[in-house]
């Protein structure tokens, strides 16, 4: 079809350029390729790569909106090292990631194992677990805030019935605010990782389980010797994706606590927001955001190394 329509154009095609040259087909593809990529490259260069370079530059300057940026060398970075607020945000970010990543992954695997069985209502349960993934975290965080309200919150009331009582309420209690935003983070994302695990489970040949059953292997032995090792790649990928996502936690924290109480829930992204857009210290804010770059770069490099070295085959 396409060939019939384009055939009439064929004679005019080879006219421009030296068609005898052996590299002409590749030359034409090269030109076409750069034309295809041009809009993307312009957008990436202007709105992503240049700002990245600019962020690096700004992190070596003192720049507070109305005064021009002045070069201060490593001052922002030495300030980071001695700034208790940065130490706090870094610790909060790592704490948040260190709890929510394994928790999300283990729950996702458990849910996937359960919902990979042929059970009645399986489709409904899968949908229910996945719905939080598609909706706005900022908007549902409003509902969570209300649910945890010490005076009129339903969840807070139910928890008080089973003995979990907080005087100030979850989000104002310095030791409970972080667990509260962690819980919302896990609730929001667990369905995403569950679906990835389900895909992994479905790619394991059932033949292996049948053979194991014939050999008399119980449920635990089958999980331990077939499912878990064959999901190794999927687990690694999910752990890394989850860790990268949790290091960027912001939305529910902004809505539920604004980083409080006493900065107990302020993550690196939340601190970048506060320093950059509440206090308008652009230079220092840029330096803070590079801490996030370093953390995520380490994870990405780990991911590359892992997947370069090994692939589990069936």
């Amino acid at each position, binding site marked *: 079809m396409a060939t019939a329509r*384009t055939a009439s154009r064929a004679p005019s095609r080879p006219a421009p350029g030296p068609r005898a040259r052996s590299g002409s087909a590749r030359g034409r593809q090269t030109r076409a390729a750069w034309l295809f990529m041009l809009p993307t490259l312009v957008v990436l260069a202007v709105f992503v790569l*240049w700002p990245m370079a*600019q962020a690096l530059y700004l992190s070596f300057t003192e720049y507070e909106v109305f005064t021009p940026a002045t070069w201060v060398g490593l001052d922002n970075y030495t300030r980071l090292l001695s700034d208790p607020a940065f130490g706090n945000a870094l610790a909060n970010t790592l704490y948040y990631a260190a709890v929510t990543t394994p928790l999300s992954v283990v729950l996702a695997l458990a849910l996937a194992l359960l919902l990979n069985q042929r059970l009645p209502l399986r489709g409904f349960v899968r949908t229910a677990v996945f719905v939080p993934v598609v909706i706005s975290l900022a908007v*549902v965080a409003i509902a969570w805030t209300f649910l945890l309200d010490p005076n009129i919150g339903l969840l807070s009331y139910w928890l008080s019935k089973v003995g979990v009582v907080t005087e100030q309420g979850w989000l104002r209690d310095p030791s409970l605010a972080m667990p509260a935003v962690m819980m919302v983070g896990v609730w929001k994302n667990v369905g995403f990782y569950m679906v990835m695990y389900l895909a992994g489970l479905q790619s394991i040949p059932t033949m292996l389980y049948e053979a194991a059953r014939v050999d008399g292997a119980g449920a635990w032995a089958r999980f331990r010797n077939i499912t878990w090792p064959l999901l190794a790649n999927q687990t690694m990928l999910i752990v890394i994706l989850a860790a990268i996502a949790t290091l960027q936690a912001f939305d529910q924290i902004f809505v539920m606590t604004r980083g409080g109480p006493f900065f107990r829930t302020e993550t690196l992204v939340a601190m970048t*927001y506060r320093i950059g857009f509440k206090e308008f210290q652009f230079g220092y804010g*840029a330096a803070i*955001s590079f801490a996030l770059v370093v953390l995520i770069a380490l994870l990405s490099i780990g991911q590359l190394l892992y997947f370069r070295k090994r692939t589990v085959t069936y």
Partner: protein
Amino acid sequence: MATRSRDGRGLLTTWRVLGTLTGLAIALAMLFPLVWMVTTSFKPEQEIVSFPPALWPEHFTLENYTGVWERLPFTRLFLNTLLFAGTVTVFSLLLDSMTAYALARLNFRGRGVVFAVVLVVLMVPWQVTLIPLYDMLAGLGWINTYQGLIVPRLTNAFGIFFLRQFLLAIPRDLEDAARVDGASEFRIYWNIIMPLAVPALLTLGLFHFMYNWNDLLWPLIISQDESRQTLPAGLALFMGQHVVEYGPLMAASVLTLLPVVVFFVIIQRRFVAGVATTGIR
């Protein structure tokens, strides 16, 4: 033998009942905040603030829904969000797929470098660009404008990567035949490759739309003015300013989430398949 199999069946039934009940409990727990949000949005204000709180309203009311428009420029916020997420989705699909086509199907010098740039952009957290981007857009006078919200998002490294992986798997015969017949690269891209990529484009389009519809941080910074604000940012800021008006806030939240949930339930098969493939390389 017969007794053994009957025992096995009994165990299986117990397991099925237990498994189903567990699943049901999990589903209810996951949906609880959303169900509560909907029921609360139909409660009169005095019931919302009464103690002890209840899940189900005693008297149904619509006053919270009418109240949304008195307190928020809801229609405006809705249209802003739709325009932002919709435009970004359409253009990003076009630009992402053109680049993915070049990277996956064309043979040219510099391909490795461009792909490496895409990977770098994919790996560097975008929040690092926030401050310089804000600074740049402020210089252009693009703060609180649609172009300020939209243009920096016209292409997406994840989208390029995702489509490239998909396009690599398409057999080359068709386009080679077309190339021999002298078809232009654009024609091959548009008439041969894109129709084959429709499933991947739909999945990616859903990701783009959902991500931008739900996004908080970017619109929060780039459009602080109500005339250009999106729903998540608008509601989050509304919550910060107004202390206890939970009724209208819940009604507005329901109106924000409902289209997404309904849309998702309709197309969930494709969506879930899309998530599953993000893990496959």
